[in-house]
């Protein structure tokens, strides 16, 4: 076992909580990977845009996916459970995954959000996302007429 595999990194969230992770899992996040490769690592690595609750979740995901002993279907099962969270958390996770440039997590999250939005009607989208309808009546009619197949 070479020492580089054992290397740990300390990640510090925006609210000053510190998390210890294996370097091999952390480099799934390209932002962290770039920092490590450019040797700009100062222990601990400050992540100003991610708070501790979200960072904990990201680390959980990261470590699960770094484990080479798990099969793909097991990872998928984990993903399915992982995304059973309130929508706000998912959105915050997306922001974090974007900041950390964690492609896998990003894909899983976007797919979940998209899946949730499947089969929603226009009114449901507005209600669930709390979106104000700023269409005038004519504009809305025009928009609906443009996308007739969506309402079949």
């Amino acid at each position: 076992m070479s020492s580089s595999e054992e290397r740990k990194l300390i990640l510090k969230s925006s609210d000053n909580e510190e998390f210890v992770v294996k370097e091999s899992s952390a480099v799934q996040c390209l932002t962290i990977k770039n920092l490590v490769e450019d040797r700009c690592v100062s222990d601990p690595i400050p992540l100003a845009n991610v708070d501790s609750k979200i960072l904990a979740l990201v680390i959980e995901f990261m470590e699960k996916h770094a484990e080479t002993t798990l099969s793909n279907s097991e990872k998928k099962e984990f993903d399915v459970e992982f995304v059973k969270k309130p929508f706000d958390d998912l959105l915050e996770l997306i922001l974090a995954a974007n900041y950390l440039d964690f492609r896998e997590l990003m894909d899983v999250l976007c797919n979940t959000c998209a899946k949730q939005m499947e089969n929603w009607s226009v009114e449901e989208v507005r209600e669930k996302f709390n979106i104000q309808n700023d269409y005038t009546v004519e504009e809305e009619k025009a928009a609906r007429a443009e996308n007739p197949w969506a309402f079949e």
Partner: protein
Amino acid sequence: MAFECQQTVPRIEEVDNPQVILINNIKKFTFESENPKSISKLNAKTALSVNESLLNNSWPITDLPPALISEILNCLDPKELGILSCVNTYFYRLASEHHVWKEFYCERWGHPITPDNFGPGNSDEKSWKELFVEREFHSKTFMGRFSIDTLYGHTEAIRAVFVLASKKIVFTSGYDQIVRMWDMEEGLSIASSRPLGCTIRSLAADTRLLVAGGTDGFIHGWKAEDGNAHLFDLCVPQNQNMEFRVWEHDGPITCLALDFGKIYSGSWDMTICIWDRSTLKCLKVLVHNDWVWSLVPNDTLLMSTAGSDVHLWDITSGTTLAVINRAHVGNTYSLTCSHTGKLLFTGGEDGSIHMFGIARNAKCNVRKIATWIPHTGSVYSLAFEFPWLVSASSDGKISLIDVRKLLKKTSRHSPIQNSFEGDHMDQKHVEPPQRMLHGFGRNLFSVCIGCDRIVCGGEEGIVRIWNFSQALEIEQRVRTLRGIRLENRMRRRKIQISSKGSQSEQCLVAARNNQTNGDRNGWHYKHKCKT
């Protein structure tokens, strides 16, 4: 300043002071310091929707930076994008400009053929979304009214039909050994070649090359001439430069295909040869275990049927990626695939058609999505243009199947879903075809789809072109006529009612007395009054 941040973000329900919510939300939004626009939008939104957020506890999705919303939109189907664009002007902008529409379009139909819209960036600019919407709407045309063109010329059964959509030319050939070219729009013969020496069982063409293969195992080809409006000159006596003949196979060639640099030929000698187009040399030989009936190349993947098995090959390495054993009971005669190569359709001797989904990951995963049994005889030929799958069979019928509904069930979002779960459900779900075209008495050997038309040829030696290009216009006309008729009827009724009212006193009294007797009596009275 209003930036007195608290260490933890309290849940909104606990806080009854709206002021505090504002502060906490601003703290959250230090993420988007690069995106000042969204912060101001946020301020406006929280001011407006404070009450709602007290109730809903939801974090407006619109406050994500547009790039991230785009990421989510990337995973949606056109239908959902359509719905999203009706939600809000902001979403409308996002959803419409979205480059995903280009992806949707190209995924289904490849790049648009017509020269006058090269996509956005042209002066005649149509956004990809508009193109997609048009095309999607246009695909309904195959459910509408058609007209049939019958092309006579062949003296014996036709074994091969090929449509070159970009030039609107149909090539046909068969037992009479002659390759004929027809103009698809006019329904007239353009040219015919001399007899090639043996039954021609397969044809393939693109704008540079036409190839024919037959029972004697050779490939006879014509190169396109630059000045010729019809591309190929079939009549001219053997011209060394423009025609060629190459030999390689030991048995009849049953299938041919062309792609950018290669020619593929499959034969009953159980092999497929991959040729280089420019040198006309055979580069690779793919060996099967049975007669090769059909092949279709897609990018780096080559799909072929041999006996009752379906093989998937990697073209560059020449290795087998996957095999579907006994795809059909009896021979698997026909094969076609979608534009992206993600969907594979096979038709067999048992009269059934299967649809498979191909996942190109580390190993090639193939799973059956659906089955149809529209025919009572062998399915000799298949053709696909999103979303229509056309099959021609020995029972003399052509079936049209719309695969869109099935695609909804097997969603694109398979990373999370266990992709094998959906299988068992779908396999049992056998839907009948949307449409069947009749009119042939005997075997149909080959069918092609293109330019709103379906072209088919078979044992009778006649080429039939079903022309659907007017279907949408006719539909529109029928609808307006119906509307006019309805209007007229309503107008007549109004006149009737008003004329009843303006009748003379006598009729009025009589009518009043007979009010309960309904229309019929009223009519009698009206008639009486008039005379």
